[in-house]
């Protein structure tokens, strides 16, 4: 029992620490990457040496110190609270927008089975039968944070932003669930660890179960359409460009967080990046084989085309798998950021049209086709 509690605490600290750090780094990556795409210099002022002007004397760590500088700035700004409007809800809204998303981390398997100090555990905080449904449930709670922020600010632009966010997120909630239905049908479960296991299983006779003899049975290969639809729907759900109408700066000033300042605004901004990380983790889990390394099984590598096998220490495999999961997450998150700097923004009604009239029918068609193929096989 004590062992279980200690393991759980360690796992919570690890995954929370990883998510927070990555979300923080992503804020800098976003700025840095956009500057490279746009032929600018990007963030380069924050440095440890204190010399602002001489480039050669600065220790800038690729601009990563801006993460600290931004955080310090946000925290020390005046904590402005509005005079009119509902002050309690106004203060509570960013909390509601930020924290429920983090609960989703509890169901994500970020590694296989590891053994440390003669104690073995699965690298997943909680394993539910309902699995991914919990992710949907908690990501919907974030809608309340946005809506309340828009409503309690007593600002017409905030209100419009809140209304936009509400309709957009509620519409895409439906779409999001349906795009993933094919995955659940193929792997026959909602539990994320079981889905990951299903993506790289061995056949009953101990040989690897591969498509065409070399492709692992990852979601991305079995459900390519669902993957595209899910990326679109999830981008809309995280409210990032091209779906960023709730905060469309050229139309609604700053949308639902117009009336926010200091760390309260920081929480909205940070929540966006945390959502990107969580999205990337779910995407990795469902479509990229989770923590699996291609051809690496519980006993070691089994290469296709009878190229031989390499047996490895199970604990080492566990850590390689964990590292692989984090690496995949990182790559997906990076790819997710690129979208923002390439595409213009949709209009509010076009987003809803896209969700209901294009993604939803396609997702339904995907389900039907998947069902037919499954019943034939």
């Amino acid at each position: 029992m004590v062992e279980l509690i200690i393991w759980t605490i360690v796992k919570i600290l690890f995954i929370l620490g990883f998510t927070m750090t990555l979300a923080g780094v992503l804020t800098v990556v976003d700025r840095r990457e956009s500057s490279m795409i746009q032929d600018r210099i990007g963030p380069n002022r924050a440095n440890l040496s204190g010399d602002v002007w001489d480039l050669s004397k600065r220790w800038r760590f690729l601009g990563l110190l801006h993460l600290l500088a931004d955080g310090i700035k946000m925290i020390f700004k005046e904590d402005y609270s509005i005079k009119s409007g509902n002050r309690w809800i106004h203060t509570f809204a960013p909390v509601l927008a930020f924290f429920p998303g983090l609960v989703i981390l509890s169901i994500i398997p970020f590694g296989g089975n590891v053994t440390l100090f003669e104690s073995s555990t699965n690298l997943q905080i909680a394993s539910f039968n309902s699995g991914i449904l919990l992710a949907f449930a908690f990501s919907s709670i974030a809608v309340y944070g946005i809506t309340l922020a828009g409503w309690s600010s007593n600002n017409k632009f905030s209100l419009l932003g809140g209304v936009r966010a509400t309709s957009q997120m509620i519409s895409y909630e439906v779409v999001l669930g349906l795009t993933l239905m094919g995955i659940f049908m193929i792997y026959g479960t909602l539990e994320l660890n079981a889905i990951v296991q299903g993506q790289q299983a061995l056949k009953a006779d101990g040989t690897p179960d591969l498509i065409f003899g070399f492709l692992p049975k990852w979601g991305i290969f079995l459900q390519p359409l669902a993957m595209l639809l899910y990326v679109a729907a999830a981008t809309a759900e995280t409210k990032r460009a091209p779906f960023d109408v709730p905060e469309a700066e050229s139309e609604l000033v700053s949308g639902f967080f117009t009336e926010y300042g200091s760390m309260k605004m920081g929480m909205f901004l940070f929540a966006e990046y945390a959502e990107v990380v969580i999205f990337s983790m779910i995407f990795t889990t469902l479509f990229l084989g989770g923590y699996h390394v291609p051809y690496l099984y519980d006993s070691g590598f089994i290469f296709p085309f009878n190229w031989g096998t390499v047996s490895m220490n199970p604990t080492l495999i566990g850590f390689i798998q964990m590292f692989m999961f984090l690496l995949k997450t990182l790559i997906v998150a990076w790819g997710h950021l690129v979208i923002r700097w390439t595409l213009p923004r949709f209009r509010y009604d076009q987003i809803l049209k896209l969700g209901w009239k294009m993604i939803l029918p396609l997702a339904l068609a995907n389900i039907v086709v998947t069902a037919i193929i499954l019943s034939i096989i």
Partner: protein
Amino acid sequence: MSDENSRTLMDAGDLESSSMHINLGPSHPAMHGVVRITLDVDGEKVLSSELEIGYLHRGFEKSAENKRYTQIFPYTDRLNYVSPLLNNFGFALAVEKLLGIEAPRRTQFIRVILGEISRITDHLTCNGAVMMELGGFTPFLYAIKARERLYKIIEKVTGARLTVNYSRVGGLRGDLPENFREELLAILKEVEEDLKDIDTLVTRNRIFMDRLVGIGVITKADCIKWGITGPVARASGFDYDIRRDHPYFVYDELDFDVPIGVNGDNYDRFLVRAEEINQSIKIIKQALDLLPNGPIQVSDPRIVMPDKTKIYNTIESMTANFKLTIDGIKVPAGEIYSFTEAGNGELGFYIVSDGTGYPYRVRVRPPCFFNTQALPNMINGGTIGDIVPTFGSINMIAGELDR
């Protein structure tokens, strides 16, 4: 009892509702420059809108009455501050017409070249703003990058990026720098690369087209009714370009096309401007080939300041310098309306002279005043999201609008 039941079963349509009144501006990120649009919206739909201008009124016309003709040039820089050279040359042309003189041929070519560079910067800024307001920050920065290259060559010629003050009555302040032709051609090549980048990023982009096609439509008939000229009118199919129809400077010797739109929507305006940039580059290249040598100022000592060495060494020149500085250029009494094709359309200067060195009255016909007054008609019935690209594509420049 039945009454109470029906009251509890009342549906949402019976609830009292009213439209929301929103102030878009004067300090709003999309209202570049300062202008205020008050909107009545039902949800996202714009029911009615009202435009309020005048936040950047500086009294250009009144100030001009108290300045000598040469002193007015810096003020014209601040009219359309995205293409200041076009205003400079437009005003110079008006005064020259009133004086009955014509600038030397070299000057006219230089005016065409620099004017077209300014037209490119104007169109790049406008198209860039449209892209940025649709959330495309990357293509916007590409456009600004291209504009920056052109500003650099303008800076090299005039000494300033924006407040150029380059033109004079009957000539220019100074000649072109050395290697101007080579440098300009190199820069134009880079600009063409940038334009290609922008083109591949947005022009056929599905989201971008969805946001612009069929939005902010103004018909050809409406354009004529409102007095709209320039790219906005041409995008509606109104085939009118002053450079071609009433040639000034040396435009009649140059070969260029006037792009015409069909639908008069935001997308057509975007395309017309993009094509005009290409045509301007074509004009510049031709003008560079034809650029003659010769003086850049007329030789009339009553109009042009004598050479500095002469001022110090001869009494006639010193007197001329004194008279020009104190009295200014004595423009014969009369009135003139002179119009040129500026970035936004017909830029007209109406000048009344009473024979002194100061204009009796100067009136500017700012092209975007006419474009902007049609704006409420273009945005009514659309959504809030449509206001920004429409407003961007008519290219309101507050300095010119409010004068």
